[in-house]
């Protein structure tokens, strides 16, 4: 990451709310910290349509305010010093967490928060945001969102759910791992086949209670994903499948998918879409003996 990239990332950051004119000024700062105000204005006037000294000073004052430069003495050296420090920080971290969309890390799954985010999706008028996705082996918290999903369907929101095919070798392997390494309270009762089928029974009820049930799209996979994903619009929670615990009982990365740096958001979305493509559709139709279909889903 060079100085220019750093300045660009900084200018995009929502923390400072810089205007387009202020961004132009900031982009004229060089890395050496030796520019005087006069040097800076000259640089500016070479790069952009020339402006008056007073107008330039006003823009700088706004920038100082937004960066909270309040110390005594000349403010430009203070701004340069602050930016130099941030640049060093930036280089150490390579990229800002906020820039990649990481907004928080929870110690376990934030049940109410995800519910609120689904509510936001239900209320939004933005068609691009009308999407709820879940990727899990089985979702122990699926019942918490039954009402949300029914409302999603009523509001024409697509809900996509990716779960493990319960008869897959991968699901059996995950069960063996948890049985062996998770703490006693979990390992004694874990039965992935039953837990996925319980999720399908919940979805069957949701389908039964909805007139537009094609909006619930369920697919099952026979592989081993490494992250659980819960997405509502541009909000996403990602958590690892650890040996010692369920994905909802460990740290959850809270991400915004509209981040300026799409590295993480795009990677997770692409992998979800890839899994979605290779997984097989399964519809727990209340009017059908779907357990028979489930057993042979990947066999023929």
């Amino acid at each position, binding site marked *: 990451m060079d100085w220019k990239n750093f300045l660009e990332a900084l200018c995009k950051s929502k923390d400072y709310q810089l205007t387009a004119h202020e961004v132009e000024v900031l982009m004229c700062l060089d890395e050496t910290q030796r520019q005087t105000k006069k040097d800076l204005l000259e640089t500016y006037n070479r790069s952009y349509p020339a402006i008056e000294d007073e107008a330039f000073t006003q823009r700088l004052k706004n920038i100082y305010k937004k960066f909270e430069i309040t110390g005594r003495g000349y403010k430009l050296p203070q701004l340069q010093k602050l930016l130099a420090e941030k640049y060093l920080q930036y280089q150490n971290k390579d990229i800002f967490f906020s820039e990649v969309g990481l907004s928080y890390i929870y110690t376990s799954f934030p049940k109410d928060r995800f519910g609120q985010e689904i509510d936001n999706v239900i209320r939004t008028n933005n068609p691009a945001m009308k999407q709820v996705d879940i990727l899990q082996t089985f979702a122990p918290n699926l019942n918490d969102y039954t009402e949300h999903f029914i409302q999603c369907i009523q509001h024409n929101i697509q809900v996509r759910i990716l779960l493990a095919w319960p008869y897959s070798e991968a699901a059996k392997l995950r069960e063996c791992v948890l049985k062996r390494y998770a703490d006693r309270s979990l390992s004694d009762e874990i039965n992935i086949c039953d*837990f996925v089928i319980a999720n399908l029974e919940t979805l069957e009820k949701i389908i039964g209670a909805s007139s537009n049930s094609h909006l619930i799209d369920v697919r099952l996979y026979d592989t081993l994903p490494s992250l659980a994903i819960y997405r509502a619009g541009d909000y996403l929670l990602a958590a690892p499948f650890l040996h010692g615990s369920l994905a909802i009982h460990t740290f959850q990365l809270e991400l915004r998918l509209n981040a300026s740096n799409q590295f993480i958001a795009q990677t997770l979305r692409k992998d979800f879409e890839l899994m979605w493509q290779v997984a097989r559709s399964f519809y727990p139709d209340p009017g059908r003996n779907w357990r028979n279909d489930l*057993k042979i889903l990947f066999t023929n």
Partner: protein
Amino acid sequence: MIKTINQFERSLIAQFKLHPLFVQLDAITWPHLLEILIQRRFLSLSVVNIYEFAIDAVADQQIKQTIRGILNEEFPRNTKGVPLPSHRELLFQDLLNLGATSEMILATPETLITQKVRNESYSLMVKYLGTESFQTALLAFLRFWAEVLVSVEYSCLWLRISERLSNEQSSHKIRSEFYYFHMIHDSRNSDVGQESLLGGLTHAQELAIHLHKLIASEAALHSCLEAEQKAFELKYRFYDQFTHLLDQSTY
């Protein structure tokens, strides 16, 4: 050794499909087809005893667990523990949907040959006890008799069954809930030793994984081949009893 088993199994299956009844199945009248399926139901009902015997007889805990899992699938429950229609109920329903009456299914006596095939199958498993490779013989017999050949039988019979039942939701035909699904999830599906980590395992493949581990000596190989041959002969004999129906066909 595994190559020998795979070649042997493929050859037995090919021979089985050439049973005169299957070759000329189209010549069988519908009432006769129902007669065959009603007799075949007695073997389906006996599967539970065969499986229970195997669970008690095998020593290896992992094999026991697999066999138990397959048997439990015959009696599904939802995750609240409420019993759902068992596979034998689904068989009964398929037979009704094929045109048999409840009385025909329930009151038709078992023929002597069906009874003999059923009893000899059980006795054969008893005979394996105490032999050097008894686990191999039991498992090979169980897999071939109750899974591999079942799928072959139903795939041959499906040519006629599918005249009245479908494998999908269809507005014209009722869906088969027993024959079709057993045809798929019991099938051999791959050579022994070639089971994939991705995709699903059929019952025959689940048992094949254990069988593969047991075939570690010439004696075990011999027991396996002999058990499969016996399963083949018993099932073949079961269908022999119906070849006379071919002479009574309207063709």
